[in-house]
């Protein structure tokens, strides 16, 4: 309970407090301080979950599925706040944003963090929806922070597409509540996930399947699943880099988490009705299409942030496909992929953010020879790209390897598509990044004061996870796999 409060309250208070603080010199360190406090809370929370298995408070519930995601969210929130110190100082020096925007930025940063933590921690499907929609509302003004015509357009697109998309998820939620009225003893608890989960086999299968489709379309818009992804590259490329890091590293995960919670609820009645694979096929289809389409679109990007935005769609598609494939191994791979992708992608957006400041442009052809201009930044970008492409010994290799093994076992011919998609994505990213890292730098390119500590932290974590998964995390992921798929991750292999 106290740990939950320490996790959620700093960001909740922070959004009000920082709205009141006008001086940038105080607001930015305070933003970092609050994020550190939240991260401490999440570590304490993780410890509680470890010792007690479950932490509950009225309306909130942290179990093995959301505990690692909560720690991850608080961690990336903290490191990105650290990055934002220097990045935004540069932005302020260049007079790209006005006084009111500076205040808005930090307040909305904490609001965004709070809505994501709330969405992860809540036990109520309605609150989950409110929080995910709240995350959209908190970020639209951050996407249009620079007030350029492009950023305003990107924010408007983001607002409208995600707003309409997420409305479908609310319809799905209403249908679940409707189905719950007939199935559970206390109808007022009809949106409480733990109660619904307990009585899941009694829910009406047809209503639940319609509800799942609506929820998948709704939350899938926020995951960035093709063909609902159009907002994603625009919002990622036009917003400030710290926000791109949070959007890509965290928000997509939160939306996918919502889909997973609902999948568990829909699977039980559909199993009883004789359609055990319906939700799985939907996720597989959406995931595979997103993965392949994004891998193709990667090839023709000319903006470095759009390039990595498409790479996010690709990886979220891969994770979605893994959950759709089902079974212990693939589900474990999907969960693990969510964690390592989030760490890698946010580190990439940090280096990319500084790289655009070095070159003064986001266009790939204007950024050249980072290794010469600022070697540390160049290495950060290069190692991040190596990790995101799924090379050993980084963590993404592990998850992709597990996923392809699971695919070979159950749908052998699909593993060909997966392998060719991975090769295409690799080619797309490296062809574009090679001159950015190794080329001859233009004369005007100057190093900036960069904060590379977050990058080092993220990448060494991804490396560690690739070499050996710590037993605590493995245990959690194993139990979460059991919750999602009903079987142990490595049960079939031993």
């Amino acid at each position: 309970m106290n740990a939950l409060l320490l996790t959620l309250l700093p960001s909740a208070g922070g959004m009000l407090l920082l709205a009141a603080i006008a001086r940038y010199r105080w607001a930015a360190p305070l933003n970092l301080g609050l994020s550190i406090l939240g991260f401490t809370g999440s570590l304490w929370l993780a410890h509680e979950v470890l010792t007690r298995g479950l932490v509950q408070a009225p309306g909130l519930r942290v179990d093995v599925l959301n505990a690692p995601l909560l720690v991850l969210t608080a961690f990336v929130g903290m490191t990105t706040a650290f990055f934002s110190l220097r990045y935004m100082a540069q932005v302020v020096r260049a007079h790209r944003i006005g006084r009111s925007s500076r205040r808005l930025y930090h307040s909305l940063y904490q609001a965004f963090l709070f809505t994501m933590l709330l969405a992860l921690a809540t036990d109520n499907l309605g609150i989950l929806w409110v929080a995910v929609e709240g995350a959209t509302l908190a970020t639209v003004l951050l996407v249009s922070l620079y007030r350029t015509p492009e950023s305003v357009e990107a924010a408007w697109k983001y607002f409208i597409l995600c707003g309409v998309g997420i409305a479908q998820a609310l319809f799905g939620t209403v249908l679940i509540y409707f189905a719950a009225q007939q199935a559970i003893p206390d109808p007022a608890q009809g949106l409480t996930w733990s109660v619904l989960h307990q009585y899941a086999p009694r829910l009406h299968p047809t209503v639940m399947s319609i509800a799942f489709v609506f929820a998948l379309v709704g939350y899938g818009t926020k995951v960035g699943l093709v063909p609902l992804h159009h907002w994603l590259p625009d919002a990622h490329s036009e917003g400030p880099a710290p926000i791109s890091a949070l959007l890509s590293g965290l928000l997509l995960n939160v939306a996918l988490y919502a889909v997973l919670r609902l999948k568990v609820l829909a699977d039980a009645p559909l199993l009883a009705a004789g359609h055990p694979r319906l939700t799985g096929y939907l996720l597989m289809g959406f995931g595979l299409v997103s993965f392949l389409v994004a891998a193709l679109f990667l090839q023709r990007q000319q903006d470095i942030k759009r390039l990595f935005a498409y790479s996010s769609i690709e990886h979220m598609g891969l994770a979605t496909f893994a959950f759709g494939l089902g079974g212990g191994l693939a589900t474990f791979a999907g969960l693990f992929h969510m964690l390592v992708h989030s760490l890698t992608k946010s580190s990439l957006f940090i280096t990319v953010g500084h790289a655009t400041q070095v070159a003064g442009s986001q266009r790939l052809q204007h950024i050249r020879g980072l290794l010469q201009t600022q070697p540390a930044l160049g290495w950060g970008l290069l190692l991040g790209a190596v990790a995101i492409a799924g090379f050993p010994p980084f963590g993404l290799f592990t998850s992709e390897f597990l996923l392809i093994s699971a695919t070979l076992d159950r749908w052998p011919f699909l593993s060909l598509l997966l392998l060719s998609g991975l090769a295409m994505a690799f080619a797309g990213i490296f062809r574009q990044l090679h001159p950015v890292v190794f080329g001859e730098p233009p004369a005007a390119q100057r190093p900036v004061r960069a904060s590379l500590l977050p990058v080092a932290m993220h990448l060494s974590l991804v490396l560690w996870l690739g070499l050996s998964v710590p037993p605590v995390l493995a245990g959690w992921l194993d139990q979460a796999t059991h919750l999602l798929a009903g079987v142990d991750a490595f049960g079939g292999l031993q």
Partner: protein
Amino acid sequence: MTLLALPLQEQAVFVLAAMVLFTSFLLLAQTRLVTSIHTFAWQGGLVAAITALMAWSSDAPHLYLSAALTLGLKALLIPWMLHRLVRRVELDRHTESLAWPAATLLGGAGLVLFSYWVVLPIEHLELAATRNIVAISLSVVLLGMLLMVARRQIVQEVIGFMSIENGLFLGAVTTAHGMPLVVELGVAFDVLVAAILFGVFFLQIRESIESLDADRLDRLSEREPEA
């Protein structure tokens, strides 16, 4: 079971729900911006009336609160804000020429049929009455989306967005007697924040493209210019 055999309150709910659907079609065909805002306000008022009726007939006092909330937000506050904004950006005499009026309305009718087809399998649950209402609320949601696609005006897109919310709320109230109170308050809060943000955006968009025409928001696309 014929609809006439239902108790009187339920019949009244049906009539009101049908009128909500009718206002959705009116929004679809309306060319004058100010009239659209008024129609949207009427739709919010009708949804609030249905909520109040449900509260009275099913003896659920917390629904009175959501009825008041709907009336205040959807029928009064948001239309008033839109009205003020439209006057501020001097669009109050704006009329729009519809590109394909007949096709749009026929498409709308098709969406209503589609909604009935989607909810067809739910029939053996409870009563046929619920199925009708679910179909109507789904239709209102889909018509709102059609409105957003068919119109080029940003204000009209906002009206479409908000009428989607109306449809969702109608579904929640009539099928399940409203959501739990915390959730309803949260949703209302989100809608309010969204309405305020729309206001901010009108001004930002007008500043950046000097128009509120969504067609002119076309700078970002995959066809990048060769610089």
